[in-house]
């Protein structure tokens, strides 16, 4: 039915319609005409219609962007609130600021949380250092080992390459929670759970997904460069370190930033594998303080301040490298 109506010539339609149209439909026709829709025989305007759709698109996109951004704004605003009550009442900006506290400055809760952490036997800078160790050492060493494997998978021919490739690929299927208990038992036998090694050593052997991503990138690199280097007498290590590593830098950097963010935010790993509070990373301290003092009248905004402190480095890193990160994720999507 709809097809038949669409195929009807517009001129005939207009001639019939104009006789019977009552003022309401005439007004409707004019109204729709402004937005480029030709109904009841009026001519449609493609340019106006595109503007109309664009405006609706922008309204929806901005609405969702607001939903995505607002919680972060709320978080930052809440960390400047005077106490729990004024924090929870915050919609855009707290009604009572921390400056109204006795001896309070604008950043009162940011200094207060350091005091609270000290009382709980945590040193803020030590905790940050732990987090940095957990998210830099395994990521850097792991990137080198992953790129080595990626280079071998993409550009070298050796016996059993396909077998090794699928052997590693199949490991992705093993869900983390299924093996974490066994991993914990081994790490605690090795005494890695008391000194943070459980968060460092496993990452140093490279990540499978990282290796596969870099391998995809290396496929697009011409093999002739490697051949030329070989003829000029470069050894395999030289080829890897001097040619492959620099050329694959865009992919390596993207994966590195993503893994850094992942390690910084990692909560489940240290929750299971780190048994000594001296070696706690930021995520664990935030969650522990939140359960302990997160609902206290005075310290609730301080916990919020610590949550902001845990969030900020990642947000800054994302803001700086957003092009690389988004690009690499989009690339993963288009590979499917």
């Amino acid at each position, binding site marked *: 039915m709809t097809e038949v109506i669409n195929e009807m010539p517009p001129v005939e339609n207009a001639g019939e319609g104009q006789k019977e149209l009552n003022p309401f439909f005439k007004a409707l026709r004019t109204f729709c005409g402004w937005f480029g829709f030709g109904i009841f025989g009026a001519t449609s305007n493609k340019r106006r219609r595109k503007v109309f759709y664009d405006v609706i698109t922008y309204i929806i996109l901005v609405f*969702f962007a607001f939903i995505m951004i607002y919680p972060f704004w709320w978080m930052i605003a809440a960390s400047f609130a005077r106490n729990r009550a004024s924090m929870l009442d915050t919609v855009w900006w707290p009604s009572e600021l921390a400056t109204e506290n006795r001896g309070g400055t604008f950043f009162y809760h940011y200094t207060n949380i350091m005091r609270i952490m000290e009382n709980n036997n945590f040193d803020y800078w030590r905790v940050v250092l732990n987090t940095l160790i957990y998210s830099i050492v395994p990521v850097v060493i792991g990137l080198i080992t992953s790129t080595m494997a990626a280079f071998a998978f993409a550009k070298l021919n050796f016996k059993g390459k396909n077998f090794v490739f699928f052997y590693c690929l199949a490991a992705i299927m093993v869900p983390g929670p299924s*093996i974490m208990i066994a991993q914990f*038992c081994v790490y605690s036998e090795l005494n890695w759970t008391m000194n943070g090694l459980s968060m460092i050593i496993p990452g140093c052997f490279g990540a499978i997904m990282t290796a596969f991503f870099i391998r995809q990138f290396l496929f697009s690199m011409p093999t002739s460069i490697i051949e030329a280097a070989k003829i000029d*007498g470069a050894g395999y290590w030289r080829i890897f370190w001097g040619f492959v590593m620099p050329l694959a830098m865009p992919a390596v950097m993207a994966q590195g930033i993503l893994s850094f963010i992942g390690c910084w935010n990692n909560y489940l790993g240290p929750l*299971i594998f780190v048994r000594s509070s001296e070696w706690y990373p930021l995520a664990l301290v935030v969650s522990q303080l939140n359960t302990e003092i997160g609902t206290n009248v005075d310290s609730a905004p301080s916990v919020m301040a610590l949550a902001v402190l845990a969030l900020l480095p990642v*947000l800054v890193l994302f803001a700086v490298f957003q092009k690389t990160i988004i690009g690499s994720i989009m690339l993963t999507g*288009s590979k*499917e």
Partner: protein
Amino acid sequence: MEEQTAVQENTGSRQAETAFEPPKKRRINRSVLAENLWGWFFVCFLVIGTTAFIYFALVLSVWMSFTNYSNSSGTTLWEALKHINPNGWGYWYKFMFSPEYTADGTALSGTGINERFWTTLLNAVIYMIGIPIGMALSLFLAVLLSRDIKGAGAFRVIYYIPTVASVVSIAVLWNNLFGNEGVIVELFGTRFLGGSAFMQKVTVVIMTTWKGLGGSVLLLCAGLNGVNASYHEAAQIDGANAWRIFWRITMPQLWPTIFYCIVTSVIGGMQIFSEPQLLYGSYLVGDASVDVTPFVGMIYGYYGQGNYALSSALGVVLAVIIFLLTLVQFALDKRRDA
């Protein structure tokens, strides 16, 4: 230098082979040998890591589930592995599927956790209702972003911010926003985190959907960029409207991306743990009420109680469930193609 001469020697000897009778001893091609050795050297770290930290742990997990190892065993892990569970090797698997209560509802102590097992599994499935909602939303947003409008890149970045944000910080925020006195609760007039078990689950679903939206929007945007535009033009000339073009031309080409998103989010959804644990805290211990506990919450709950053998057994069951779910999804996808 070495390899170069090796190659020359090699070609020389091959010519010699064709010209004269074949030599009795097969010469090892030195450049091929070098490439083999270096290839193995380059992959060895990843292979050792995968073997030690994934496959070995998996085997150990299965093995541990047959023992009675716990933190009160008083022996080392290696010692405990030598002794199979005195109640029979499959004791913990039987334990999982034995009833917890008698017919009249009185608790049987130490016989099983059947009810808990199925409740937590159902909870994990309920937490996954965010997946279809999130997929539909992100598809909608990705289609809007694929119109040639200015600032699409900025929107993509904004939508991805929650994904990179620390889950712990977000949980602290959610606790305050959705807590009993929070802004959202006063806005909607219903209790979320302080409300019924269902509303508590809804809070988690809102959080995971909000946090995961950016990733699937990006993947779908990439997928939409890859959709062949010439089909669209052809269809437009043939008089198809936008709605029809979307369902008949864009969707079939986008399906692999959507399917990939669904499979990965189902695998991730079965493993949900951090979000509910951070929002409810102490609810997740194995013996307490399991109204909102996801399946993985039980694994870590028994781990927290020190019953490593039972939590390993539950982990093995989880791996099997996820494997079967993935198989089912691929089977459904195959049927769709045929």
